[in-house]
């Protein structure tokens, strides 16, 4: 799973925060170790419980951009693009400075770290 592998430090931080959250939710009665070690969906250290895992976040994107970011037709493929280029573009959409059809509206729904996770995910997908 290549998902959010590029943004290691950020991901580790959020995972440990997620651990604390989840353990607290269980009043630390359960053995709080083995199963979550490979948890692909760490919890953000805010109270919004949003996914920060790139692959999970990308579920919403692929409805338009195609499975794994490989698109048919006018909507661009994202697979194989450079993470830095994707990130620059996403930030420009959110700042309403990029040339967009609808992405300038959509990008407002995502935080910096979420955009970073998405850019990391699609950047790690094989090009079509």
């Amino acid at each position, binding site marked *: 799973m290549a998902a959010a592998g590029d943004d290691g430090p950020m991901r580790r931080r959020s995972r440990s925060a*997620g651990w604390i959250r*989840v353990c607290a*939710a*269980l009043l630390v009665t*359960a*053995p*709080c170790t083995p*199963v*979550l070690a490979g*948890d692909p*969906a*760490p*919890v*953000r250290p805010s109270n*919004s*419980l*949003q*996914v*920060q*895992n790139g692959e*999970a*976040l990308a*579920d*919403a994107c*692929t*409805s*338009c*951009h*195609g*499975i794994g970011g490989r*698109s*048919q*037709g*006018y*909507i661009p493929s994202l697979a194989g693009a450079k993470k830095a280029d994707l990130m620059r573009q996403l930030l420009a959409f959110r700042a309403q400075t990029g040339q967009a*059809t*609808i992405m300038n*509206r*959509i990008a*407002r*729904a*995502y935080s910096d770290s*979420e955009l970073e996770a998405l850019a990391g995910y699609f950047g790690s997908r094989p090009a079509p």
Partner: protein
Amino acid sequence: MRRLTRRAFIATSGAAAAAVWAPKLSAATAARIVVIGGGFGGLSAARYLRRHDPRLAITVIEREARYVTCPFSNGVLGGLYPLSRLGFGYERVMASGIDVLQQEAVGIDAVAKTVALSSGRTLKFDYLIVSPGIDFIWDSVQGYSPRAAEVMPHAWKAGAQTELLRRQLTAMPDGGLVVIGVPAMPYRCPPGPYERASLIAHYLKAQKPKSKIMILDASDSFIKQDLFMEAWKRCYPGLIEWVPASKSGKVMSVDASTLTVSTGFDDYHAAVANIIPAQRAGAIAVNAGLDQGTGYCAIDPLTFESRVHRRIYVLGDAAIAGEMPKSGFSANNQAKACARSILADLGGRHVAAAKLLNICYSFAEPDYAFSIVDGFEIKDGSLKLTFEDNRTTPLGASDDEHKREARSAASWYANITAEMFG
């Protein structure tokens, strides 16, 4: 290995969102997932589960051998392409290792965890996904019925009804009146009636320019209203008239023998009458009590698990999904969140909240589309819009922008149907 599954169930029978530490299922375990409905909700969930866990035993129950999408079906009415362009078979779904049974699900036993099929067979499930779409409340319009719909089609489930309405439009004389009766919310595809009016107008303008379309509406406003009004003024001046509820627009009764549509104040004699009745969750969900008598099914917005039964999930038009509209896009996004929660449950993991989107394009003309973009997140226990402002294409957009939206819509359709059927 089944014992493991059961242990996992017992371990996870707390609150839906609670983290659990059940043992991971062994590689040999095949949890049984049954999906009722092979459309945007059910099939998206089934394919997502298969792509993420090849061990699962997944069965989709679908009434039709070939699925016809409601998205893009207004284009058939406008004569832009034939209905066959919107039909999909389940061959590749089956080749991916999913069982597809062309059957009707006739009953759910939530205690025995079985689904009864029209063939008399019953299917056992560990997880059940219910995504039956809508059924009509026929008596919401006096005089309307399945039989009346053969004369005054609803065309709100794509297929034979769409073709019937198209045939009526092509057969009607120039100068005829087309009536579109719009029900009260909530109903499937809120902008659908207005896109339909637009694309029928596209046909009439070219072929029968003396004709008129009258939209009789049970509401006083509608989604993307300003954008539709702008397009109608520009593309179809004088061709489309919208009558809101406050101007006695609500259709109260119809007489199929005379093609009369009545609002209680005015009677309209239509050349073609497209009557869209009020709707509720598909019968299988209602009969199983998943709607608790309300017509639609309450769900946990994190997992889409029914509020009535554990490990029974409701997706798409049948669900009460907060501010998410009843659309194919919504159902598809819900399906992935639901599938992810089932995978987490099977793995004994906590599931984090998904970020859900709904992106909906409407066509005014073949090269003229506009959109609304919604993000959703859970606030106060319900799915609410992430942002409310600037969700639609701006008014006064250029021809080029409308054209790019039309091309995006076609590309979206190709990609989402590939995710389901490809």
